[in-house]
């Protein structure tokens, strides 16, 4: 049984020298021979899906999460933890704002501190085109009931003092600010969901790679999975595998409108608190915030070619750092500690794919591209409903795979904020 966190349990463990803490989630060595729903992918989205299924749709039965590596070790542990919902179209605003509202209560919901910090996300405009584009976003967001406001350069400087608004190379002509946006602790999100899902009976099996999807020879419906830890029978499979989604869907004979690219990020040496918010500069491509450990967390761009290498080329990082040094001259002499890459699955319209597939029993939640972390609670919530009922949740419905055939794309290339 999971310990409920609180003053009493903390005090009790403090007196015992903190030797009484048990693992916060069950991690069975092997999967059972059969489940009712299997979620493939133990990142934030997959764990959130499993948690919501167990909590709000318990009638589906036994649930398992299969993870190739360790939970939260993929893109959940590799992103820059930015949370915002200032997307252009009403469909996206509904989806991402659903997530932001869930973020606001998530620590209490999971009884786990995910350190959600709505410190404000400010997007800089460097050109007339940026100004027009961002003001359009501000107005569209206001119509959708999503907070987003326009700041003058002086207001932007006041909100983020390290910013150089007179920067000769990238002058700041204004900024769009979403005050409800911010950051959260990415590992805690995976751990908190794992703990809460496990307490509701979800089996989380790590180091268990899916190697095949079995289908009924007559109707084509899924019947189970082949894994490195044996065969698992199950009538419903939810694939939430980010960059590896194409590989898994190919096991069921499906081609996807996805391409996987390395997206890089890096952190600086830790310093005293200097940076009060999140700043994104879409045009010059740098985004930056400061973690609670004091490191500056800097997001760079994607490489120009599809790859699964989790590495990426050095010129992508140097391009981001050049922009950061121009916009924040006081950071010029800071040292960078480490950089890494994650494999992101991008769609042609930069919006995710959530819903059913042509294969009965097979569901997919993918295509979050460069910005999936912000959607974690909302993504899991609507995907769980989709799996449980077999029909898309109303918020997820516009993001169905069929939109690439009908032509009803949701083109968020400008709001996605990472140059592709």
């Amino acid at each position, binding site marked *: 049984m999971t310990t409920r966190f609180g003053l009493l349990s903390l005090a009790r463990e403090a007196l015992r020298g903190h030797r009484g803490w048990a693992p916060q989630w069950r991690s069975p060595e092997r999967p059972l021979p059969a489940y009712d729903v299997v979620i493939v992918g133990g990142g934030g989205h997959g764990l959130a899906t499993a948690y919501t299924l167990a909590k709000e749709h318990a009638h589906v039965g036994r649930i398992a999460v299969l993870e190739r590596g360790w939970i939260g070790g993929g893109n959940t542990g590799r992103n820059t933890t930015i949370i915002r919902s200032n997307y252009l179209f009403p469909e996206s605003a509904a989806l991402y704002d659903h997530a932001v509202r869930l973020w606001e209560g998530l620590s209490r919901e999971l009884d786990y501190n995910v350190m959600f910090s709505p410190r404000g996300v400010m997007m800089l405009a460097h050109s007339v085109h940026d100004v027009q584009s961002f003001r359009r976003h501000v107005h569209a967001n206001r119509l959708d009931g999503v907070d987003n406001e326009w700041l003058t350069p002086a207001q932007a400087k006041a909100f983020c003092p390290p910013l150089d608004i007179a920067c000769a190379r990238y002058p700041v002509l204004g900024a769009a600010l979403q005050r409800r946006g911010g950051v959260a602790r990415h590992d805690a999100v995976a751990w908190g969901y794992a703990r809460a899902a496990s307490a509701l009976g979800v089996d989380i099996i790590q180091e268990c790679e899916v190697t095949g999807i079995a289908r009924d020879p007559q109707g084509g419906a899924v019947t189970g999975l082949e894994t490195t830890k044996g065969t698992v029978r199950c009538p419903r499979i939810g694939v939430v595998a980010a960059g590896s989604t194409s590989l898994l869907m190919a096991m069921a004979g499906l081609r996807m409108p996805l391409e996987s690219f390395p997206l890089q990020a890096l952190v600086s040496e830790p310093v005293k608190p200097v940076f009060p918010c999140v700043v994104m500069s879409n045009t010059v491509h740098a985004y930056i915030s400061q973690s609670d450990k004091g490191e500056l967390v800097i997001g760079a761009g994607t490489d120009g070619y599809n790859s699964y290498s989790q590495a990426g080329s050095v010129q992508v990082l140097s391009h981001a750092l050049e922009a950061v040094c121009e916009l924040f001259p006081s950071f010029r002499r800071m040292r960078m500690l480490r950089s890494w890459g994650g494999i992101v699955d991008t769609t042609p319209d930069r919006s995710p794919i959530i819903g059913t597939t042509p294969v009965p029993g097979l569901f997919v939640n993918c295509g979050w591209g460069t910005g999936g972390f912000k959607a974690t609670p909302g993504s899991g919530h609507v995907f769980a409903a989709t799996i449980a009922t077999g029909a898309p949740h109303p918020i997820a419905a516009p993001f169905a795979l069929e939109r690439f*055939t009908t032509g009803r794309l949701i083109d968020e290339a400008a709001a996605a904020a990472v140059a592709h």
Partner: protein
Amino acid sequence: MLLIRCPWCGERPEPEFRHAGEAHIARPADPAAQSDTDWAAYLYLRGNPRGWHRERWRHAHGCGRFFNALRHTGTDRFAATYRPDEPRPDIPDT
């Protein structure tokens, strides 16, 4: 940073090039005769394999010409680059 061999100019650093997606995708001769499903497949569906990938590159800051390449998406190693009029090289054993 990758070192890429342009079939016309020789080996050059990656920033001179632009990746141009999966290669050998032929535009249907009569788009109007395509079903919505086939047209969507032509426009959007991609192999995205982890393994050998035939792809197009353009030597944007060089000769400006398109060419094809055979690259491994797990290691980013190039097995070959070839001109559009050349036969497709075989996929290496390793």
